[in-house]
């Protein structure tokens, strides 16, 4: 994604770059928001169907999310292997040439914002999907949460100027990503463990009270 933004800006003549950058960023953010809302609507539809069929069972889905988070935390710690079902295709790069700058930025980010329909960069996406499927009683909340995820995903593009990565080569971006590998692994593990702990803190008192 970082390559795409840099490339779309850098191919413009020097005098045009400032305007191009602002335009690409704005349409990128709008696209992320739209893509997130779109995938949120799909999940909301599924969750609503589950709600009609089996009623509201958020604790059941919370428990399932905790189990899945534990499974992927174990995988991240190299204790065991767990399959990671996902779409392997990414947003086609050719869109950058086919469409105008604004349209390409919007569509590219909308594709990224759909999260579950692209290659997943984090294992935390799986417990997130399960949590959302459990709140079919409130479809608007599902759409709002996924729209915010899409927007956060698109907003990471803003790191380019803020981290001074917008004027460096692709190799330097690769090196920068590689240098963050360990901290990314730690953050991933922290998020998965947080999901387990928060879910357990909600479920266990209720089980004890019932007992």
């Amino acid at each position, binding site marked *: *994604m970082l390559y795409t933004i840099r490339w779309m800006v850098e191919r413009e003549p020097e005098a045009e*770059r*400032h305007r191009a*950058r*602002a335009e690409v*960023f*704005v349409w990128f*953010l709008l696209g992320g*928001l739209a893509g997130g809302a779109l995938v949120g609507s799909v999940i909301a539809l599924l969750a609503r169907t589950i709600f009609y069929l089996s009623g509201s069972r*958020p604790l059941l889905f*919370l428990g399932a999310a905790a189990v899945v988070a534990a499974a992927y935390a174990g995988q991240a710690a190299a204790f065991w292997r767990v399959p990671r079902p996902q779409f392997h295709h990414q947003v086609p790069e050719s869109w950058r040439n086919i469409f105008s700058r604004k349209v390409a930025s919007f569509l590219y980010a909308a594709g990224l914002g759909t*999260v579950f329909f692209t290659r*997943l*960069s*984090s294992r*935390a*996406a799986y*417990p*997130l999907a399960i*949590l*959302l499927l*459990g*709140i079919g009683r*409130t479809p*608007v*909340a599902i759409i*709002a*949460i*996924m*729209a*915010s*995820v*899409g*927007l*956060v*995903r698109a*907003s*990471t593009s*803003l*790191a*380019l*100027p*803020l981290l*001074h990565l*917008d*004027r460096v080569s692709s190799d330097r971006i*690769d090196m920068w*990503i590689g240098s*963050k*590998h360990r901290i*990314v692994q730690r*953050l*991933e593990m922290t*998020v*998965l463990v*947080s*999901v387990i702990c*928060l879910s357990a*803190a*909600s479920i266990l008192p209720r089980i004890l009270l019932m007992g």
Partner: protein
Amino acid sequence: MEQRAVSAQASPDHSARATGAVLGIAAIGVVAALLVRAGWQVSWFVLAPAVISGTWVGVASLFSP
């Protein structure tokens, strides 16, 4: 003279960072508004893990080539 040349070189970087910062603040505002909207309807015990994992899913793509 030298100073003028340096500031002319630094200016595009500065404006790019300013654009990034302004849009970043706007994005944070929109995300906060969306999550407050979701928070009206969903209990904290579901919302908290969803927000943590969702935010990380978004941020993690920064580190994906």
